[in-house]
């Protein structure tokens, strides 16, 4: 606004002086020309007829006797102008006058050249003025707009970065603008509330699992005492064993759920360089009885040494889960192949002759076999651990071998 006023204020005198100078130039040119012309004319018109005399001094004027009365008519023609020495547009007035009872035709012409240049100048100045105003306004508006909306964009940026699981609350800029200040306050309380809900949900799963362990312990102890009672009929014995098995499964499920909750709660933050081959050998040793019971042959091939920066316990759980699955879902006298490469490893096993259903494979509680010991959580846990370390886990079935492959994306 101020800018526009300023520009206009400046333009008015600028305009004025420019026009004045053009006009002045004109006048001066004119006077010079007249002087030159005068001399020439005087030489020319000695003893000529009165009309020629007139025309010599008024080249724009033409008068001849006529036989009729011409109405006032205006038109344009191109004619040679002696001053600028070229053909220029002229405006002509053709008319009639009566002098001493005799009609005369008169033509008066006026050069449009200077008018043109004045018009051109005016247009030019106007154009420059307009462009200056527009450009200026554009910049000023942009600048103000940026300044005005900066807190908004800052808040937007912070929102993009905000993660609900992060411990820090969202940091928003202080601003004088009421509306944005209001917005920031609202966002702050919203994110704080969400964070609290998130925390209590995290705690809930872990707490629920913990709480479960005591009644499970009581249950198991009572079943065990029941076993000691005497006499026990065969029927009772079977029921008691059924209870005991169910209790065992509940225990395992609960432990697994607790572990999943802990992984989700980022409670395994310590990391070290974990050697995959060493971990595989350790777990193979732990499972050697199960391997020999089913007569499964285990073959390990190391293409390149693989060491991953991760939590040792979690890696053992990951490999252990895959390995125990490979044992559990294997056939008697079956085979397990383990392939270790620089940043990946693959565990393959013989087993059922049809491939597993990939879409349901990594969901919690999906069981792929009738084996009552198989908890659907095993693969879900493996996947969760892989997610934690930015690794991919894939299943494939080829040549009667079920393969689970884990590849780490950053070395």
């Amino acid at each position, binding site marked *: 606004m101020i800018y526009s006023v300023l520009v206009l204020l400046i333009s008015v005198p600028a305009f004025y002086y420019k026009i004045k100078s053009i006009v002045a130039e004109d006048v001066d040119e004119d006077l010079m020309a007249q002087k030159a012309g005068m001399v020439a004319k005087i030489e020319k018109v000695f003893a000529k007829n009165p009309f020629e005399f007139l025309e010599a001094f008024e080249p724009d004027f033409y008068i001849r006797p006529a036989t009729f009365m011409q109405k006032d008519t205006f038109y344009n023609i191109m004619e040679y102008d002696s001053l600028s020495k070229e053909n220029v547009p002229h405006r002509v007035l053709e008319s009639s006058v009566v002098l001493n009872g005799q009609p005369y035709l008169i033509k008066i012409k006026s050069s449009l050249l200077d008018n043109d240049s004045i018009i051109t100048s005016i247009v030019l100045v106007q154009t420059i003025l307009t462009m200056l105003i527009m450009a200026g306004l554009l910049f000023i508006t942009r600048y103000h707009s940026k300044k005005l909306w900066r807190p908004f964009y800052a808040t937007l940026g912070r929102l993009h970065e905000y993660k609900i699981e992060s411990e820090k609350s969202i940091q928003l800029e202080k601003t004088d603008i009421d509306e944005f200040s209001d917005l920031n306050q609202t966002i702050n309380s919203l994110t704080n509330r969400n964070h609290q809900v998130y925390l209590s949900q995290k705690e809930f799963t872990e707490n629920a699992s*913990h709480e479960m*362990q*005591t009644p*499970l*312990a*009581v*249950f*198991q*102890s*009572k079943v*065990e*005492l029941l*076993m*000691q009672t005497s006499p*026990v009929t*065969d029927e009772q*014995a*079977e029921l*008691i*064993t059924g209870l*005991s*098995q169910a*209790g*065992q499964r509940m*225990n*395992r499920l609960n*432990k697994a759920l607790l572990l999943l909750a802990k992984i989700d709660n980022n409670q395994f933050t310590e990391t070290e360089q974990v050697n995959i081959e060493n971990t595989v050998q350790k777990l193979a040793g*732990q*499972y050697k*009885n*199960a391997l020999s*019971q*089913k007569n499964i042959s285990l073959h390990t091939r190391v293409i390149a040494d693989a060491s991953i920066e991760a939590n040792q*316990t979690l890696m053992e759980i990951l490999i*252990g889960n895959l390995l*125990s699955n490979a*044992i*559990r879902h294997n056939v008697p006298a079956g085979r397990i192949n383990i392939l270790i490469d620089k940043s990946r490893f693959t565990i393959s096993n013989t087993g059922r002759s049809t491939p597993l259903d990939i879409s349901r494979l990594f969901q919690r509680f999906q069981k792929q076999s009738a*084996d009552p*010991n198989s908890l659907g959580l095993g693969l879900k846990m493996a996947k969760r651990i892989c997610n934690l370390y930015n690794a991919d886990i894939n299943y494939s079935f080829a040549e009667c071998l079920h393969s689970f492959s884990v590849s780490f994306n950053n070395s």
Partner: protein
Amino acid sequence: MKLLIVEDEKELSKSIVAYLKQENYLCEIAPDFKTALDKTESFDYDCVLLDITLPDGNGLNVLKELKANNKTDGVIIISAKNSTDDRIIGLNLGADDYLAKPFHLSELSARIAAVIRRRRFDGNKILVLNELTIDTLAKTISVNNKSIDLTRKEYDLLLYLVTNKNRVISKNAIAEHLSGDEADVFDNFDFIYVHMKNLKKKLVQAGCTDYIKSVYGMGYKFDI
């Protein structure tokens, strides 16, 4: 043998007492931190079963008190938490063993026996049951003073049965005692049958009465 059971869950401590009664243990119960401190200060126990999560305090502080007073009571921590860190902290503070809930009572019994054996400096490392002699220090078995050759697993199995003698031990409990975490990888309990069969054969061949009885549908019992 005097035992102190520090556990706030009443039903659980009742179960433990009921199970251990047979083994001639005198059991006392402390359901909270304060009672536990009082009792350990006033008496000496052969073994203390310590639950960490008590309503009015951290059970580990009882352990610290015991150690500070240079007491020789054995301590087994029983805890629902079962985190590796807890285990390490407990053992570093001087606990003899750490057992995670939920546990088999037969397993608890075996651990208590082991702790007491370790802590007593006056012999009692040799268990004699009729013609059967078990040297827990050398980990050898002899029948009628003639030693017999048992595999590690067979020895563990026999010791487990003997420390829980005259009580039915479930197949689950045996499986977990022998193979720990590997237990859930097995399809069935065939491997137990195999070990049990081999053990019985070796004992009988050496002239020992066959005390190991199979209890229909539930498990085994060392009947003596």
